[in-house]
């Protein structure tokens, strides 16, 4: 398995009472797998995605990715690992507002500096232009995100996520702000990535998005299960 989460727990301590976000979650995803996590808002989906994305260290449990334990690495090593092995797609797109579409897609090459990479920075531009062509954004390459539609922004984010040829894409409600047509385009791109040997972890509460996955897990109050449970909000 490329990704293995073994009894991972995470509790937030910010408020008056501790809020358990992940309760001994175990999950395995291999390359070529498209896994969806469904659940109500605040059930811990995003926490699971960030933990799998090496951005949020769990309180306990083991996280293994491609045979590596990212949370045992230094911060910089983990950042490099993340830049090379993972791609992110968010509901809010998180494009850099002052960079052009092309530059946004090229942004992940910043992580390639001083490290070996699947994408040679010198070839990154050509690859970025190819991705823009693939996502129908070739004529938008010089535009800033503010001039794009929501669908175009998410396609731009998709192109950015794929630039470094990651092993796994982590998508957090990627269709949440899209019309059905654009949502289909994004889900199609995710599916194509899996077909080419990548792994996708999608968190969503959208039935249609989940339907695109090979396997769906359900989450409620930080507990992961293979079947839906009564929805109760327990965490952000």
């Amino acid at each position, binding site marked *: 398995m490329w990704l293995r989460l073994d009894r991972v727990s995470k509790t937030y301590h910010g408020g008056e009472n501790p809020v358990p976000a992940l309760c001994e979650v175990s999950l395995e995803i291999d390359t070529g797998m498209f896994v969806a996590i469904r659940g109500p808002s605040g059930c811990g989906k995003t926490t699971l995605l960030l933990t799998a994305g090496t951005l949020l260290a769990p309180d306990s449990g083991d996280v293994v990715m491609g045979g590596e334990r990212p949370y045992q690495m230094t911060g910089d090593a983990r950042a490099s690992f993340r830049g090379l092995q993972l791609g992110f797609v968010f509901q809010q797109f998180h*494009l850099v507002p002052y960079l052009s579409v092309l530059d946004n897609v090229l942004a992940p090459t910043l992580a390639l500096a001083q490290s070996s990479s699947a994408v040679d920075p010198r070839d990154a531009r050509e690859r970025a232009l190819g991705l823009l062509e693939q996502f129908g954004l070739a004529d938008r390459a010089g535009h800033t995100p503010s001039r794009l539609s929501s669908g175009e922004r998410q396609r731009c984010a998709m192109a950015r996520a794929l630039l470094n040829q990651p092993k796994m894409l982590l998508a957090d409600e990627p269709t949440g702000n899209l019309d059905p047509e654009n949502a289909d385009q994004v889900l199609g791109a995710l599916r194509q990535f899996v077909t080419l040997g990548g792994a996708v972890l999608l968190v969503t509460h959208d039935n249609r998005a989940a339907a695109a996955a090979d396997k769906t897990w359900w989450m409620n109050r930080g507990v992961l299960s293979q079947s839906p449970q009564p929805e109760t909000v327990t965490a952000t």
Partner: protein
Amino acid sequence: MTLSHLIFREIAHRKLNFLLSVLAVAVAALTIVAADIVVRRDAEVTRRVMAQKQSETEAAIEEKIELVAAAGADLEDAIRKQMKGLGFNVLILPESQDVAELHLQGSLTQTMPESYAQQLADSKIMTINHLLPTVLKQVRWPEQEMDVVLYGTRGEVPLMHRDLKKPVLDAVAPGQMVVGHAIHQKLGLKVGQQVEFMGREFTVSVLHPERGSGDDVTVWIDLGQAQEMLGLQNLVHAILALECECAGDRIAQIRAEISGILPGTQVIERYSQALARAEARTKAKEVAEESLAAERLAGEATLLRELESRTRLQRGHQQLSRIILPLVLLLAAAAVGLLAYVNVRYRREEIGILRALGLRTRQVLVVFLGKAALSGVIGGVAGVLLGIGSGALIGRLLDRSEVAINLGLTEAIVSSPGLFVTLMVTPLLAVALATLSSWIAAAMAASQDAAMILQGE
């Protein structure tokens, strides 16, 4: 895609933030340069003002020397003319004294009672002003193995029927010795030196300059001591009568008058008027030199006052810059730091996604510190350029002296290598100021938790 590209694009996107940061740094650099220029201009202006004043003072003294020289020549001429009208000196000798001995050997052998001087003084003689009883004899100075003329004098005897006048010749105190030029030159004597003369100790009190007469081989001592050494107690060889108030053709009248009072004496003319004229000239020269010395002192005092005035001005400007400079640097640093903090707050989402994309902590630091350094470079260079102009302008406004107004900027820079260093170093200081002031904000950006930011959606 590079970090510098990211930095430049962000600057282009948030121009106001960057321009304000550049402005704050530029103000700091401007203040450093302007303050340094003002202070160094002060120093250069002071140097030039002092040089100018020094030159003016020296020119004034030169002019004074010429005036004094001209006045001295006039004075000498006037003295020469006046001396023609003055009386002359006579020597009263025992009648038995061969005058040829005096002229040939410079000494006398015949004596007369010392009381003659008092007798003459007590008389109502009108043609004589000063009376000096003396012994005058050529003797061997056994300790130095040389022949000298020993002159014993006690100073003048007051004329009882006259008002007391300033003595024309000073008495020699007992135990002291006045030495003629040829003798002290030969023996290498100094004033205050102890010498043994004919078995007695004397202190050299005066060394005469060269007179070109028998005085050059003469030593003067107290009359009483001379009488004892020569075995002539209460006896004198001659009485010198000075400044006789009569024309040269009336010497006969003096002789008649003195013979009437002191029978058995003879009167001869003694000492050329040239000596008196030479002494008068010397005195005139001394007065002129004193006048010049006073002029120099006055010039130096003027220079000192000018220097004190300039120093006060410089200190005032230095103190002002010591207050303003740290204040401006502090405010600039605070402004740059605040702007950097605001920038970080604006870019939280961007930081989160960049971290998610794999940017390392150091890279995030570079993004923010690189921008700060760039504002430092631009602000520093702009501040230096503006500071050069401002410093020159402020320097002229603060110092309205002609020299300060006319001092060119290039001259001020060339004349002060330290200022050149300031101009070179200030942009580096500006970069350091901007970078250090932004450090906290950059560190905050680098330490931001990407997960927290991305969850915030």
